[in-house]
């Protein structure tokens, strides 16, 4: 036995798969595994949800008003 574990392999390629940087063959292999494996499919859906969650969690803070004013003041004065 080679000890090949398809779920461990799927875990390895999950992030590159989500980043869309796998080759067509690698992508097809990952999708075939996700189709048949509920364990990995559940974790894949979690990873997708997590990415959105992380993005939203850190996106709430706009440039503070006083900083925006300071940046405006850095502009070259019009002659």
């Amino acid at each position, binding site marked *: 036995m080679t000890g090949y574990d398809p779920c461990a392999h799927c*875990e390895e390629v999950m992030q590159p798969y989500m980043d869309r940087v796998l080759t067509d063959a690698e992508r097809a292999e990952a999708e075939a595994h996700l189709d048949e494996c509920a364990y990995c499919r559940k974790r894949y859906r979690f990873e997708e949800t*997590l990415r959105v969650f*992380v993005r939203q969690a850190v996106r709430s*803070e706009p440039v503070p008003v006083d*900083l925006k004013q300071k940046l405006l003041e850095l502009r070259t004065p019009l002659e």
Partner: protein
Amino acid sequence: MSETTREPDARRLATDARDRVRFEEDALALSDQVYRVARHLVGSREEAEDLMQETYARAFRSWRSFQPGTNLRAWLLRILTNFNIDRGRRQQRSPDMQPLEEGDYFLYNKLEAATDGPTDEEHVVERLSQNDVVAALSEVPHDFRDVVVLVDIGDFTYADAAQILDIPIGTVMSRLHRGRRILKQAMAEEAVGGETS
């Protein structure tokens, strides 16, 4: 100087001024996006604000070196990350010294074990709070955090991140891989602490 030579000069100056104003307006329009990245590259709001002012001051002075038609947001962030490095805000320089991180499924497994009731992805992710994410991100070592912030928060491609940080694309990929795992490990710690799975 005759009238005929002065007129093209005046026209050139007017064009120059117009291009500069346009550049400054374009750069300022991106300030929320640049700040969002800056805010998570450094530890505090004060540091992020200092970096933003240094970056915009430099950008407005050096606006002629920006090539119109290329990615202005990436150009601004390259200035910002250079300032961040120059100002010695990085203490952790060696990626090899970082602790070993868990696999990609670690966070899900940890949260699932701590979740009562349904364990679909929506319920499991609800174990995390916004503060867990922000706190966990601040714990990721700088070299890894820079890449995670640029790609996962700034929406930059691997190639853009490589250009901004002036590192090879392969280094972006390996740091992103490890950085995301370190982030998940830190989120698990924040969310469920020492509970075992």
